[in-house]
């Protein structure tokens, strides 16, 4: 296990992140303090949560471009709920956020499973539909900080052992889904369905149903993040997290998740998200305009897929004996 880890892409990425942090802290010593690193992690938590869901969807040979819209819609619904009924406890809010997100994910999953519509078409469509629905229910208005209850806003910011709740939830999700993907039949099915859909049928795995559950998980995580996001920034409006789905896909691709399906890991998604998070938090520190962010994550996607492709280049059948020894 450890031997396998050391040579993987995850290890390389981890090394890259450490080097990046080290480089920044040689010039700006404050960057690498535990306190600031906890900040960076907490700041990256939403991206980590969504990247885990996206990773699972991509494992099954699909893609979910609607995650940011799901996040925004769920965030708006719970924010409006909080405004209308401030007494509803946070636990119920969390439950509603996860359930609504899962339901929106199930909509995507339904179209992919039952109607075999290409995932990119489905989620491009639901992406705009979900955003439109936010406008319809909110009438284009904002829900501002003073309209939200203190408990609602306080939950993700509650600090335990130096790390806010938001960060802890991300850690919890990483552990939970690492176990789900490596140690449960459903988790193995995600890999099987994306790696070889044809063979999955012969193994008794329902490809469509497995993809459906991947979307439900992705939606549930996006719903959860929707509440956390809205509460943390204490504002909800139509365009929150606009374009965030691209960062999420970027985190996955950088984390070594193969867009062709069947290959990837929760740890990879985590590291991919952290890589982007460190860069994003470093930009203001090293005095580069935040407007560079978009181009940097775009370049990171392109470089990462080029590297992925090189790593997974199909090894041809080696026929010559001589070459077999050389390889």
């Amino acid at each position, binding site marked *: 296990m450890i031997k396998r880890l050391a040579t993987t892409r995850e290890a390389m990425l981890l090394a890259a992140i450490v080097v990046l942090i080290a480089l920044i802290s040689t010039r700006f010593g404050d960057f690498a303090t535990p306190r600031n690193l906890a900040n960076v992690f907490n700041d990256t938590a939403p991206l980590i949560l969504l990247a885990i869901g996206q990773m699972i969807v991509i494992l099954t040979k699909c893609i979910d471009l609607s995650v940011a819209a799901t996040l925004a819609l769920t965030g708006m619904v719970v924010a409006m709920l909080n405004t209308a009924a401030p007494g509803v406890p946070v636990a119920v809010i969390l439950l509603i956020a996860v359930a609504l997100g899962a339901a929106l994910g199930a909509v995507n999953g339904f179209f992919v499973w039952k109607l075999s519509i290409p995932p990119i078409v489905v989620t491009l469509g639901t992406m705009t539909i979900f955003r439109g629905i936010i406008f319809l229910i909110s009438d284009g208005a904002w829900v501002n900080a003073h309209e939200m209850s203190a408990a609602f806003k306080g939950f993700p910011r509650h600090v335990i052992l130096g790390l806010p709740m938001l960060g802890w939830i991300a850690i919890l999700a990483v552990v939970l889904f690492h*176990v789900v993907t490596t*140690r*449960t*039949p459903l988790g*193995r099915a995600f*890999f*099987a369905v994306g*790696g*070889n859909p*044809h*063979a999955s*049928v*012969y*193994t*008794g*795995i*329902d490809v469509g149903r497995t993809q459906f559950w991947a979307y439900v998980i992705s939606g549930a995580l996006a719903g959860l993040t929707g509440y956390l996001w809205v509460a943390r920034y204490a504002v909800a409006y139509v365009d929150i997290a606009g374009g965030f789905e691209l960062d999420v896909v970027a985190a996955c691709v950088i984390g070594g998740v193969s867009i062709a399906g*069947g*290959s990837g890991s929760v740890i990879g998604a985590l590291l991919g998200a952290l890589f982007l998070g460190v860069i994003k938090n470093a930009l203001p520190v090293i005095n580069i305009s935040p407007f560079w962010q978009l181009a940097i994550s775009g370049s990171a996607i392109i470089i990462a897929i080029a590297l992925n492709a090189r790593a997974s280049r199909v090894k*041809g*059948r*080696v*026929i*010559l*004996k*001589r*070459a077999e020894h050389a*390889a």
Partner: protein
Amino acid sequence: MPPVLALDGVTKTFPGVRALSEVSLNLYPGEVTALVGENGAGKSTVVKILTGIYQPDGGTIRVDGAAARFPTAQDAAAAGITAIHQETVLFDELSVAENIFLGHAPRGRFGLIDTARMMSAARDILHGIGAEIDPSVRLRDLGIANKHLVAIARALSIDARVVIMDEPTAALSHKEIEELYELVEKLKGQGKAILFISHKFDEIFRIADRYTVFRDGQFVGAGRIAEVSEGDLVKMMVGRPVDQIFPSRSHQAGDEVLQVVGYCHPTEFDDIGFTLRKGEILGFYGLVGAGRSEFMQALFGITEPSKGVTKIDGKVRVIRSPADAVANGIVYVPEDRGKQGAITALPIFQNVTLPSLSRLSRAGFLRLAEEFRLARDYTGRLDLRAASLDTPVGNLSGGNQQKVVIAKWLATQPKIIILDEPTKGIDIGSKAAVHDFMAELAAQGLAVIMVSSEIPEVLGMSDRVIVMREGRIAAELSGAGMTPETLVRHAAGISEVRR
């Protein structure tokens, strides 16, 4: 002894096709039953029904005399039926152990997969079939033969009473096939019922105890293998007596048209060189994986050789892409018709004219009337059977699809045609037609290269044979030197001792 598994009057219809009509099939414990039939006889459909992929429309399936149904693949497995499929149905990204136990892994606390128990169980099963494979490595790191062993281990990981083997030797080398036979004997000894599907008669007569013959989705006959002759089985399969007769040819080779010198590739083949004359049929024999197709694809410009010169009519030609090859008169009929040979969703006429478009068109604009004329001309010569030239190629039978692919290349008026396993997966009737046509092409002065793994075909059709082994030319044979024994010896590497 009563059968452990019995199909009775089983019927399966697909839109427009009746794949099985009221067939029966009995499998007995400790015995190997060979299921014999031409392509399209319904063998694969039976396998899919027995493994829960398809549901029958009528008839009964009995396990130990009790009626059974298999709505999913897992239900079939629960009933003790397991299959080693024709294509490898495995997962490159999962570990060997996970591949073996996917769908029925041992569970531990909280219902989580018990990795340690899974590993040791996988090791036991692999050991039991004599495979020394580390169950923790990822499948993608294994070679083809080992992958096949994992597939067998997977089939044995459930406590199976019925083991289905769907053309299990198709991708195996000689030695691996022998090992498979031993395994079959072992399974028989354990009292398992084995359904063995194969095209190879020598194999059937060697290991089967019983046979069942299907033809066009119907049951034709069954019995003990000891009480039937090869000729009788063939008769049952095709409904008429057929001896494999190859067209008689008067070999009159003309001028040298192709000269290949020193073709090398870092991993696939090494130092391939030969010459080819007009009107000649040059056979390429070898075991599966000897590098024959890989070399042909390099000659055709798909893969790039690291070294090597191609001379056509004595002049050096550089071929970097199939388009270059076609322009120089070399065409290639690939082994994989569905993927490489035909564009199955496009109509027949568009498939036929695809490589000839630049010649047919005017300034890059299509001329439909010309296209239909060309397609009609060449498909007619090959005796194609289709509803119309506008029918998608995918709607045709394998034999007719092959005719479309050959017509496509003949329409380019090539000098050299390479046919890679030209009769693989084609029914016996179409096979003879393809053989006749090859002979006719050679008689018209075309130079033909035929890659084939069927010894009768190689010997029956070729003027000369090149045998390849492990990426190199092992021998070039002609005349009296072309015997089944020499082919097998050179292909398997036994000849080295002699020198």
